[in-house]
């Protein structure tokens, strides 16, 4: 058996102590050990962004982050942020703008959008497109996702 690493971290506001393999990704840890399913496995190679989570407040693709490296850190997934006003506003906006089709990319998309809007006031549509370009969506053609994000950005500023 491979040697395990003991890690201690905060996940969605909860203190978690766990043992992880050296090669266990943060995504695998969240999904299989903690059963947090809103971070999705779309590619496992850092291409698609469906696994986006916040690591110490910064969006990361959790499929290419080792769980061991999250030791001592704060991890947030979409399901742990349901009360945050910016997340709520984006969720509402995604539903009303029809930015959701199959929904598989949606949690990662909302987290990336929220992280960007938190740090950028009054972004242009092009800025938003670039900010979201690490999150792939096959259904929507992105238009309504950008519409939904922009609507929240305008309300914020």
């Amino acid at each position: 058996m491979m040697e395990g690493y003991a890690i201690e971290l905060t996940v969605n506001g909860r203190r978690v102590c766990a043992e992880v393999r050296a090669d266990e990704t943060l995504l695998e840890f969240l999904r299989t050990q903690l059963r947090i399913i809103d971070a999705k496995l779309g590619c496992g190679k850092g291409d698609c962004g469906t696994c986006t989570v916040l690591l110490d407040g910064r969006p990361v693709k959790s499929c290419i982050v080792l769980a061991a490296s999250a030791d001592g850190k704060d991890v947030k997934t979409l399901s742990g942020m349901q009360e945050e006003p910016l997340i709520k506003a984006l969720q509402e906006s995604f539903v009303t703008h029809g930015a959701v089709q199959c929904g598989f990319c949606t949690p990662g998309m909302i987290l990336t959008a929220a992280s960007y809007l938190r740090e950028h006031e009054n972004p242009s549509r092009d800025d938003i497109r670039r900010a979201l370009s690490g999150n792939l969506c096959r259904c929507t053609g992105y238009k309504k996702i950008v519409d939904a994000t922009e609507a929240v950005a305008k309300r914020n500023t």
Partner: protein
Amino acid sequence: METRQLEVAGTRTRRKDGVAKVTGRETFSSDVYLPGMMHAVVLRSPYPHAEVVDIDVSEAERMGAVCLTPFDVPDIVYNERTVSIPEKTYRDRTVLPKRVRHVGEAVAAVAHDTEELAMQAVSKIKVQYKELPYVLDAEEAMAERHGARLYDTVFLGEESIQVKNNIACERSIAVGDVEDGFRRADVTVESEFEAQRMYHAQMETKAAVCAPEPDGGITVWTTTQTIHNVRQLLGQIFNLPLHKVNVKRIALGGAFGSSIQMNSITPICVALALRAKRPVKLVTSREEDMYDHVKYPVKFWLKFGAQKDGRLVAAHMKALVDIGAHNIQAYPLLGCIAGWFASLYKFPNLLFEGKAVYTNKVPACAMQGYGNPQTNFAVESLMDMLAEELGIDPIQLRLMNYVGVGDEFWGQGPTVRSIIKSCGVEEMLSRGAAMIGWDRRVHPWQKSGDVVRGIGVARGFHTSGTGGPRPGEVIDYSSATIKVNEDGSVDLITPVMDQGGGTWEAAAKVVAEVLKVPLDMVGISPSDTRTTGYDVCTHATRGVYCGVGAVLHVAEQVRQKILEMAARILEQNPRDLSMERNEEIGQAVIYPTGLPDKFITLGEVAKTAQIKSWGTIAATDSYRQKNCPPCFVTHFVEVEVEKKTGRVRIVRAALLGDCGTPINPDMVKGQLVGGLCRGLAFALLEETAYDKSTGRLVCGGYLTDYKLPTACEMPAIDDIMVGFANTYEPTGPLGAKGIGEAALNSAASAIVNAIYNATGIRFKKLPVTPERMLEALREGVAR
């Protein structure tokens, strides 16, 4: 039936599954976790063609893994797609093959307590292969002298047939006399066209979870567009009675055709679970998914003959389809390509000759449009070439020749035909021309500079379902159950899968419309194959027209039952009652016609019926649509070509859709914009290229190397204009037709026509990558 003023259908609503999806609580197959569940990993062939001589799993078994080899699986030769009638279904595969025919084909599988342990175990399996000659090119595959032969025999229905020169099937379809037609033509144009092997790239990779049940049966959660066909196939392969095979309807993370069938991993997962007597989960990696299915690549030769005035008189198409290692649906595909070709314009004489050929590559299957985007690329490119030859405006030439109201339409090849009753072609061409500024369009030779722009048009369509007046080679019907609860809310139980386009939402809206209940009083029940009647598949743009068509059919019956129950309470004749939606009360109300004050609520009716033991107000039925109306689209696109980099950018687009009544207007727009994005990918970016020396994919399983478009590749958001034709389909639910596949079908063609208008270069091979553009600009000739 009174004439309907639509109150719910056709309005913008917040989709019912929206909240689950934006909160991350929607459950997809890969999100199903069961107690005691094992994880499966598949061992895949590194060779494009090889015999499996021996497999040694002893070491993996010593590690505690449950193993599955080709020597352990049921000896059933099946086809994963069972949409066609059995006698037109080719069968060439088993759960695990003793001879692998493409890199990435499953050879063995293991299940263990964790995915990590399963990975370790699978690495200990020793497979002895005997490599065989392989072929990656369709034309080479047909050559007499080529040593690679994928199959000696396959099944067609119950009959064993010989495969000659790797030709999986052929189809030749003629209307009129094409030679005579060409003799009467003043002008002929002809060209070859080639559409590439594209990958579906649905965001959710294929997944399956199977739980063995105490009664010997199984429960299955899997990525599929058809729960009932999966159920029937699993029952057949594992010799289980169907009441012991339960396939759950579950959210699907996109599909675009990639799950039109029972996916190859599903029976592998089931076999492992039955062996292990424990639940097993199998989620494919992105690379495995890329090795599972691609879009059908087609090489065309196409010729048109026309009179001087622009009237088409003859057309001849040859199509060569490289289907890869399995024949999933090549026979109906050839018929459909013939139909897409025959139904866009009126050709009094036409000939179609199609061939589908096996190669040692990833099996091709349906992908949004099922041969239609490929065919459309050839037909709409050649229409522009003909327009230029004749000196007629491309829009004018299309208006002169389009197939419209009163004409016959081939919805699913030559055996499924119906007469067109609604058509927005003219309206969309004229509105779209105004939206894009068609009159600003100038010839390519009037343009200069390093950055040039061009405007292109293409029109397309897709069928709505596969129903005709008489059933053809394709099965098509759907079922629904609707019941009224004792508070006036309604449960809808449907077997129809939703790929994300909003089919369930449309179903709920139709129920709300007919039963006069507020939309939030309609619930879409979780369902499975045990609790629903048959639905063939969410394919062929049939979700709304056929699936919701069945929902409407059942809702009408429930409405009648409501009126009968209410009549007993109100002591009236049911015919003398009226129903309406009362938003204030939040319910449907029923009252004697003309006496709205004497109303009772639907909840009171249902509750009274329950208390008095009259029964539950409910109905279940199946319904078959007897038409397959085309949903038309028109794409106008303006592109910008950077001559120094070869990059093509879409700067503006006008997308027009004729879906009859748009039941979910927002989602129809979403389909059209999403279709543009995938059309852009088809025209400019994506292709699964192969390494000829290994038979492996060059992209190595990376979506970015495969070049999936991001938000940045789409036109600036303000520059996508969307419009609906003002049509009503008399045979559709509340006047609706489909839209899904149509939304894509002419997008790439319009882009390629716009590139011609920008550069004067006619691209006949997709995708038009910057490399190909630069090469063409250097050579200064048509590619």
